[in-house]
């Protein structure tokens, strides 16, 4: 049993956990911004009529969705140096998370855009708007609301996925737990503590999702 559970060691390692937590937060935030950019570009490519952009975008999205993040991470980690890019682990990690989540975000945005009723597009066509005007004035503002909740869901997934970066020795939260587990041979203290920190982030983001959906709900009273 856990009769030897040592809160003192946890307290002793608290600065390490704190640093890991902070790293996890900002690297996730950065990756999420990166993923948004990747997602928007992919989605724009995917919505084109011509195959030239659409086919590569679709292939990329399918390839990402059909393979594990860990394999993608190793692909970049072991593969980039071969192409002459010797990057710090942290950068490789952020790159992998952005490229991975970007594929999912592209699909979220696409679903948001396609959820706009046909009549909305027809009404804007009938009033003589160009494609760009239609998108900017009618479709995207409405799609934006629809995509916020699933985007926050993707943010939660991304934070959890970032734990895998510990496997290429990025000093984030899970790595802190691993250090405690291996230095002192206290896996319970190490992993239960980081689990608690992840739950903190999870409930934080979940709360944010709740707030945003209430906010969108009141805005939705207009729809």
């Amino acid at each position, binding site marked *: *049993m856990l009769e030897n559970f040592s809160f003192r060691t946890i307290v002793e390692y608290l600065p390490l956990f704190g640093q890991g937590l902070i790293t996890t937060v900002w690297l996730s935030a950065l990756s999420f911004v990166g993923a948004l950019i990747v997602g928007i570009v992919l989605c724009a490519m995917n919505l084109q009529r011509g195959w030239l952009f659409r086919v590569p975008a679709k292939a990329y999205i399918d*390839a990402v969705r059909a393979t*594990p993040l*860990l394999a993608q991470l190793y692909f970049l980690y072991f*593969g980039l140096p071969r192409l002459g890019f010797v990057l710090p682990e942290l950068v490789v990690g952020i790159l992998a998370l952005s490229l991975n989540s970007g594929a999912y975000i592209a699909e979220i945005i696409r679903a948001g855009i396609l959820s706009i009723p046909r009549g909305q597009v027809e009404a804007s066509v009938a009033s003589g708007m160009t494609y760009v005007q239609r998108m900017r004035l009618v479709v995207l503002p409405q799609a934006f609301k629809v995509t916020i909740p699933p985007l926050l869901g993707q943010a939660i997934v991304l934070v959890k996925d970032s734990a895998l970066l*510990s496997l290429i020795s990025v000093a984030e939260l899970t790595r802190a737990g691993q250090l405690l587990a291996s230095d002192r041979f206290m896996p319970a203290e190490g*992993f239960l503590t980081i689990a608690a920190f*992840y739950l903190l982030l999870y409930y934080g983001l979940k709360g944010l999702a709740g707030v945003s959906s209430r906010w969108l709900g009141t805005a939705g009273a207009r729809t």
Partner: protein
Amino acid sequence: MIWQQLQSLAGSYPLALRGLGMTVMLSLISLVLGTLLGFGLGILRTGGNQLISGLIGAWVDLIRGTPFLVQIFLIFFILPEFGIELDAFTAGIIALTNLAACFICEIVVAGIRSVPTGQVEAALASGLSRWQRMRQVVLPQAMRIVLPPLVGQYVLLIKDSSVVSAIGLTDLTRVGWLVVQRVPNGLLVFFLVGVGYFIVCYPLIMLARRLEQRMGAAHGEVQL
């Protein structure tokens, strides 16, 4: 040089097959167990007993709120402290089954809740027992909602199985990791690893999409 690498890779062929076999085995076992457990939990969760429902909900939240890697570490390193000795394979199966069960539970709950109350009332009125109502009326209708995300969940499960390589199980990802130590061409090695997963996952992704379209058409909804 590439030629040598390819030769060396070809030599890893049996290892790769074993890795793929391990991935498929892990996924398959935990997929079956997780589905059974997930349906059970889902039905219990909607069963009306507040305590049971609350406990399941809390557990599901704990699992959804923590990284799978951390869950594996907890199971592999901490259960032994309770006197339960686990090999990596069993630990992997337990972790994956639990993960799958929790996500499938949520999918099943959403499906059951989508069935109109009038259906349950009609079944009640015709004197069906609780189990009969579930078995004959609710679940068959819930399946239309459940099936597409369920298949999608299987894809996630197969991909998540790669994380058990962290506790030393020689699955497909671990094979890549081993091979890349010997053949220093990460692009090629992990491209091939990716192909392995793709072959298993992509048909399931296509199936999920097909199901989604079919179910959408059956409901007369606009699907994406």
